[in-house]
């Protein structure tokens, strides 16, 4: 599904040039659950942003579903993002002015799903994430675990084929963390491809494969079964 070859990413400020990703290669197959680990600042989030088409590499190739995405215009990126990719962040990133229900509904609004269908699909996902009873609450009224469940619900409501999760349990205690990891595993079993950045060995064990990064390069890969 994903094939990255020779990816380069540098950030340039006035004085310094930081090479974040260097000659990076990575392949993710359909249905895989990959955990990305590595020390802080090694470029994990940067990689995830590139996978999510939020950021551009400086050179190299990123093939998604056999299509080269480097050079896509803004419209095609947004299109791909909206239909095929869901995001989960460490800091939840729910919109404070929208209720749980409205947050989850938002992606469906952008894909132009009809109101009636939106209702069934949002309720279905909220049910699945066991947060239905809180659908009229605002994010600030929820616990961290609940907020992250809403974020996962929002990521999956469009039935994306790829979920990108950046330290999804980073702000949660272990029991809430486990709950979220269980949800992700479940989604993966149903066929969703997942790439997750994590600092937790415990969480990484939920995946099929751990990719370890150091200074912008993948160094080792561990296959788990």
């Amino acid at each position, binding site marked *: 599904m994903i094939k990255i070859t020779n990816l380069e990413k540098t950030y340039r400020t006035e004085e310094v040039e930081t090479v974040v990703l260097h000659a990076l290669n990575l392949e993710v197959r359909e249905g895989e659950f990959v955990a990305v680990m590595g020390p802080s600042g090694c470029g994990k*989030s940067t990689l995830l*942003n590139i996978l*999510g088409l*939020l*950021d551009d590499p400086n050179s190299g190739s990123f093939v998604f579903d056999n299509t080269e995405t480097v050079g896509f215009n*803004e*419209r095609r990126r*947004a*299109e791909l*993002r*909206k*239909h095929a990719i869901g*995001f989960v*962040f460490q*800091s939840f*990133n*729910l*919109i*404070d*002015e*929208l209720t749980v229900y*409205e947050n989850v*509904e*938002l*992606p469906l*609004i*952008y*894909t*132009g799903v009809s109101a009636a269908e939106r209702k069934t699909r949002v309720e279905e996902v909220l049910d699945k994430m066991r947060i239905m009873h809180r659908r009229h609450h605002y994010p600030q009224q929820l616990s961290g675990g609940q907020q992250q469940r809403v974020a996962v619900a*929002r990521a999956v409501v469009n039935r994306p084929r790829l979920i990108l999760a950046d330290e999804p349990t980073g702000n949660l205690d272990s029991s809430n963390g486990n709950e979220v990891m269980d949800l992700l595993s479940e989604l993966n079993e149903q066929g969703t491809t997942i790439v997750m950045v994590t600092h937790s060995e415990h969480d990484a064990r939920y995946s099929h494969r751990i990719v370890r990064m150091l200074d912008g390069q993948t160094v080792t890969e561990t296959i788990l079964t």
Partner: protein
Amino acid sequence: MLRHYITVTLRNLLKHKLISAINLFGLTMGLTCCLLILAYILHETSYDRSPPTASRIYRVTRDFYDPNGATTLQLSAVAPVIGPLLKSDFPQIEKMAIILSGGSIVARYEDKILTQDSLAFADGNFLDLFGVRVLSGDARTALQEPRTIMLEQRTARKYFGTADPLNKELKLDGNLLCKVTGVYQGLPENSHLHPAMLISYTTLNDPSLYGEEAMRTSWSSNSFHTYLQLPATYDAAQLEAQFPAFLDRHMPQPKRAADFVPPSKMTSLQLQRLTDVHLTSHRADELEANGDITRVYIFSIIALFVLLIACINYMNLSTARAALRAKEVGVRKVIGARRSEIILQFLGESVLITALATALAVGCALLALPWLSRLAGTTLSPELLLRGPVLAGLLVLPLVVGVLSGLYPALYMSSFQPQHILKGFLKNSGGLTFRRALVVVQFVVSIGLLVGTAIVLLQVRYLQQTPLGYNREQLLTMTYPPTLTPQYEAFRQALQQQASVLNAGRSSRIPTGRLLDASDAAAVVGDSLRPTAASIKFVSIDDQFLPTYGIRLAAGRNFSPAFPTDTTGFILNASAVRMVGWDSPAAAVGQAFRYGGVMGRVVGVVEDFHFESLHQPIVPLVMFLSTVTSRSSYNLLTVKIAGANVPAALAHLESTWKQFLPEQPFAYTFLDESYNRLYEAEQRQSTLFALFAGIAIFIACLGLFGLSAFAITQRVKEIGIRKVLGASTSTIVVLLSSDFLRLVGVAALLALPLSWYLMHRWLQNFAYRIEMPWWVFPLAGLAAVLIALVTIVSQTVSVARANPVRSLRTE
């Protein structure tokens, strides 16, 4: 999608109540000002559209030149011969109508005696050309016979109540009996003339009025407003080009060939579009006070400025607040929203807010309209705004203003990169320079308006306080009926029996009026009688006129019954003496002087005084007793009363009047009031100026208030840390205020030269004006800085004083 956006917009509005309130209030104010001024402009530009062929009607006007070719007088009316001659010479003229405005007279029906204003003489052509609706009587024949009269509906009611006025008789000026032959609906309020009664034009042939001969041949009674209708596609300039030849063909030539100057060198005729009369015509004898196109421009610009300031508030506050919505933008983009969708969302938001403001503004404008009408001295009806095109415009307005004020914030916010925002850092400095620039623009405009207001007020005050050369206090003026002349001495003595009446004088015109009458003058300089270089205006006065007005003599003496030769005596003003070329007022006294064919001597010279308004320079003037030329009679009586007991003086005056003039209604005007009316336009302008400047500064300060409030909430933590590290309250106030104050300071520096230039231009409109008051400029700048300072400091102080532990804990 739409519902979603509306929900988000409303929730954001409610969440940031202060900023929303400032935005909504500012936009509402700005739009209200625009709507009010729109109503004013629509009204001012709607004049004289009621005649069916209004766009093809022209008014014939006349200019006069002195031998050097300089314009001496511009009249809106022409001589009675001109209209008929034009009509017979130029077949392209489809219709021609003449109306002679008769001013005010006394009209009587049975026991009702009233002073009647806006009397006019006209015939059926006038009714036809102006599309006057005749309510009763026959439009074609009603004004054919001499001594027939048509009444405007309201006039008819005044005299006849509900009774049918047809065939009843009105007695005018005590001797002219006119039969009522019709009633018509008055011309709309937005017309440049409003005759209240129309006497048949043929009545003027009566020898007691103009007389048949003068009506047929006079080139000099320029009181006849003459209107032409031209074919639809005809270019009026073509006709105008033939006027000089027309004048040379018809105007009588001087008897001596040596004096021959082509008439077209001394006078000219012009055509003026009927629809332009109200806004662009400022001739000496306009029928009514006209509007002024520059005033329309000035107020349009001010309205746009106020709206601009409100839009800038919106831009600034939305952009400043952008950081708070950055996460929302990031999340939307991550989910798959395109930049264009985000832009549309924010534009939609501003359009929605503007729509809300527009709705509120329409309400406010309708409520404020009667009040503005009073301030502006016109009648602005709500219908002006409730018309199809305006309403359609109101639907488009939120779109335009919303996009105008929302575009920058939308572009700015939609440019956020989600990968950066969601990580928690946002460089908010990109918008900062722009925001600062906008604050500067707001204050440049505000300070400019402040300077404008101050200078307009100072000039108006100057006009009211300038020494006029006569004393305008406690002077009553009234129409002088010629019938009083035989008994006048007895009347005056009866008046002066009581101490409350100090003096009384008669004249053909009175100060605060215009000087429109002139005749040929010649004076002896050296040893030959030579015509004067330019024309000299005249007023006929009696021997009490100068003392009544307190006009001072520079040399010689006033007229006196003790000198029978005064019937050919002249009193000049100092300007006339200078123009003639005599060395001094004293040198002029006793010199031979010929005026209007009468040969006599200068008996006295008065110091220059402001007969006309201060818009006009003082012109050369000659005064003589009304016996000197038969052309001039006394029209007005001025009575000087003691200031101590005005009601007693008025009562005495009225009873004496009733005793001598039982047929004449007693009506008077304080000269002071007439004087103030001269500057009413400036007075109103200054009030409106002050009002709009106040609103502009208020909205700009609201914006500053919002911006600084916002900046402070952003810096609460920084302030806390600084205080923990030992900063004092005052250093923190300075820290927080200096940034904004610098901007206001820069604005002041930019605004001052700009406003200096504009106000310098404005002052050129006055013949007598104040020196540019330089102190106004630093003062206005300082005032703006002070107002801004109060706005900002009021907020910073409480934050700077707060216990730092509290602000740090909130993080």
